[in-house]
């Protein structure tokens, strides 16, 4: 309380007299990452506070992305919100339309911080910027999906190269089975990987209006695309005994199953690259590969996952200046490298990536091949269908997809019917969202 009062007093003083004060300007930052990753976020704040003596970042963990956004909304309604919020992609459609944020592009301009926006990878930039190309939020912890495979299992089965097509994947399943490997793929339904990133890599739509970018009257289309056939294939692989469902609810996650050597392959974010290095038992030889595509389709880029940093409205000029300084600090090559070394995330700017390549960063363990994610992300220039998704109620739509797919995998209904239901229910959610924000459109 006393601290708060003194901060307020200092801010008032600074605002009225404009005199330089020895007290630091504080700003609050709420982040969603937890555990080891949360500790890394906290560490970036410490590093920022130690690197300069003008500003002080007060960083508060919120126990998960979802809770970070929920808490920020509740706090915002009471006008006690933080200046900076780490928000995940699925939680931002409401924030974008509410207009209750300070676009980072404008923030940096107003506070006189120069940022080379063109330096950001297009697959990342498009996700976090307006149709005019200006950034809403600051990319930070970014990832994209890949698959992890057990090298020893592959060698035993005589697979020399990790397949990059689903047809090749099926051949690999058969070879693994023939070599005595009971479970080839540890499968956990993930709308992010199986639906969203799959559709990006195949350049097929998830929804109309260029996946929601050009209007709010969007309808889901995933029940009419190659996605249906892919999900039917997954179902077939499970029935034929190549794949097995491994989820937390079923008692073991797909990652644990992979690490224990039970299953040979699992799909996940590149962010797990660091985790597996930490938890894998001695002697587990493994590697990563880009997510496969079907042979008939020309591969496209995948898009970024993870979270970005949003500057919320209604704060003081001093706090904005402090937040801008912190964001600029995070974007430096050193700080990006700090994040990469301590997590599985990927660089967000071309210059940092190039510098790391030149230094041989990705040629050393434990970072070898981690930049496969960069290949996936930059495979092509983003098309209208591979910029990302702008869907309201994304969290609910994902939940509908997951529940229906699980029901289909359990044999309760055919996969096509399940996806039709998920799309129809998702469309109701989109219609409600459009009605809630009638007359508005994504900036």
């Amino acid at each position, binding site marked *: 309380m006393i601290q708060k009062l003194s901060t307020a007093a200092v801010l008032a003083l600074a605002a009225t007299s404009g005199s330089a004060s020895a007290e630091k300007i504080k700003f609050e930052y709420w982040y969603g990452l937890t555990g080891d990753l949360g500790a890394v976020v906290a560490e970036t704040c410490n590093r920022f506070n130690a690197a300069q003596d003008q500003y002080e970042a007060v960083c508060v963990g919120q126990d998960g992305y979802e809770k970070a956004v929920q808490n920020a909304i509740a706090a915002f*309604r009471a006008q006690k919100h933080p200046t900076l919020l780490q928000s995940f992609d699925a939680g931002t459609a409401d924030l974008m339309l509410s207009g209750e944020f300070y676009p980072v592009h404008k923030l940096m301009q107003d506070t006189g911080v120069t940022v080379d926006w063109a330096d950001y990878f297009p697959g990342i930039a498009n996700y976090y910027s307006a149709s005019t190309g200006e950034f809403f939020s600051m990319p930070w912890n970014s990832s994209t999906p890949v698959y992890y495979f057990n090298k020893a299992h592959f060698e035993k089965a005589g697979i020399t190269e990790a397949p990059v097509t689903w047809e090749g994947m099926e051949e690999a399943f058969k070879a693994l089975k023939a070599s005595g490997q009971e479970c080839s793929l540890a499968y956990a339904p993930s709308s992010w990987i199986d639906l969203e990133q799959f559709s990006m890599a195949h350049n097929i739509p998830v929804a109309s209006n260029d996946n929601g970018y050009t209007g709010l009257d969007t309808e889901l289309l995933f029940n009419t695309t190659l996605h249906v056939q892919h999900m039917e294939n997954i179902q077939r692989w499970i029935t034929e005994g190549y794949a097995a469902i491994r989820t937390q*609810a079923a*008692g073991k996650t797909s990652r644990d199953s992979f690490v224990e050597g039970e299953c040979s392959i699992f799909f996940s974010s590149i962010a797990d690259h660091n985790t597996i290095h930490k938890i894998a038992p001695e002697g587990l030889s493994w590697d990563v590969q880009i997510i496969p595509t079907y042979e008939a389709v020309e591969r496209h880029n995948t898009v970024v996952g993870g979270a970005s940093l949003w500057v919320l409205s209604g704060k003081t000029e001093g706090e904005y200046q402090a937040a801008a300084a912190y964001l600029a600090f995070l974007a430096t090559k050193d700080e990006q490298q700090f994040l990469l070394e301590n997590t599985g995330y990927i660089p967000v700017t071309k210059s940092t990536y190039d510098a790391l390549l030149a230094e041989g960063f990705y040629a050393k363990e434990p970072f070898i091949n981690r930049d496969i994610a960069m290949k996936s992300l930059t495979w092509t220039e983003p098309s209208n269908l591979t910029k990302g998704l702008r869907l309201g109620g994304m969290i609910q739509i994902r939940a509908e997809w997951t529940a229906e797919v699980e*029901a289909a995998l359990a044999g309760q209904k055919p996969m096509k019917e399940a996806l039709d239901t998920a799309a129809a229910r998702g469309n109701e*959610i989109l219609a409600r969202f459009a009605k809630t924000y009638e007359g508005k459109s994504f900036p």
Partner: protein
Amino acid sequence: MRRAHFKTSWIVAALLAPQLLVIFVFFYWPSAQALYWAFTLEQPWGGGNTWVGFENFRNVLSDPYYWSSVRVSVIFALATTALAMGMALTLALFVDRQLAGYRAFRVALIWPYAVAAPAVGLAFQFVFNPGAGIFSYINTISPGLWDPSRYPAQAVLAIIIAGAWKQVAYSFVFFLAALQSIPRSLTEAAAMDGARPLRRMLDLQLPLLTPTIFFLIVINITDSFTDSFGIVDTLTGGGPFRATDLMVYKIYSDGFRGFDYSGAAAQSIILMLLVIALTFVQFRYVERRVHYS
């Protein structure tokens, strides 16, 4: 009997005010807010809302998955209430008989009530884990026989058991207190007339317990409807395939996770009406069979 009265009404008002204020701030105000939101489409970050009349209610009530959520909530409430009260009564009768070690049991049996629902859910996750839990022994009979992540009925059973376990302690305390308030002379007289313990329980103690039983039915059912969130969240997450998507859990997932404040508000109003209706039915029809003295 003469009753005491305060002379001036302002003293009454002053004494009531703090309590009324608390109820207003923590109950009527939020309820009124929810009621208002239920008839609008509310933007989560503020910024206004649109009046839509009964549309939120129509949407919810025309959703077949919502009705399955209502059905499983009713099943859950009735089953946990029956199971918890049955176990609590049995345990209380034994403790009341002052069997060996009853003092220790009396304390130990109250503890589970102090365990938070999410902790109960987590603990039962280990119990029900199909790969490593106690229930995995079922799978030694035939592999895959027990797997609540695949079989909806088993998942419902799992949350019922966990929910009932949590409720036992509360009912136990009330049953034991009620049993101990039955005059010893009555049981002793019955014993002298040759009634064995079981006969005394059925013909003497149970009829004298009816007010407690009625009270506990009302409380347990209300509690099962409104306080099941933590167990579902940690144990099943509403799955598999929405099988354990209880009404209160659906309100949370739509409102807080999905930012659909208005839809969740409409569901809260429906849940409130349902609980009020059930309580009314209980007072109207069940209470007739209760003997208070």
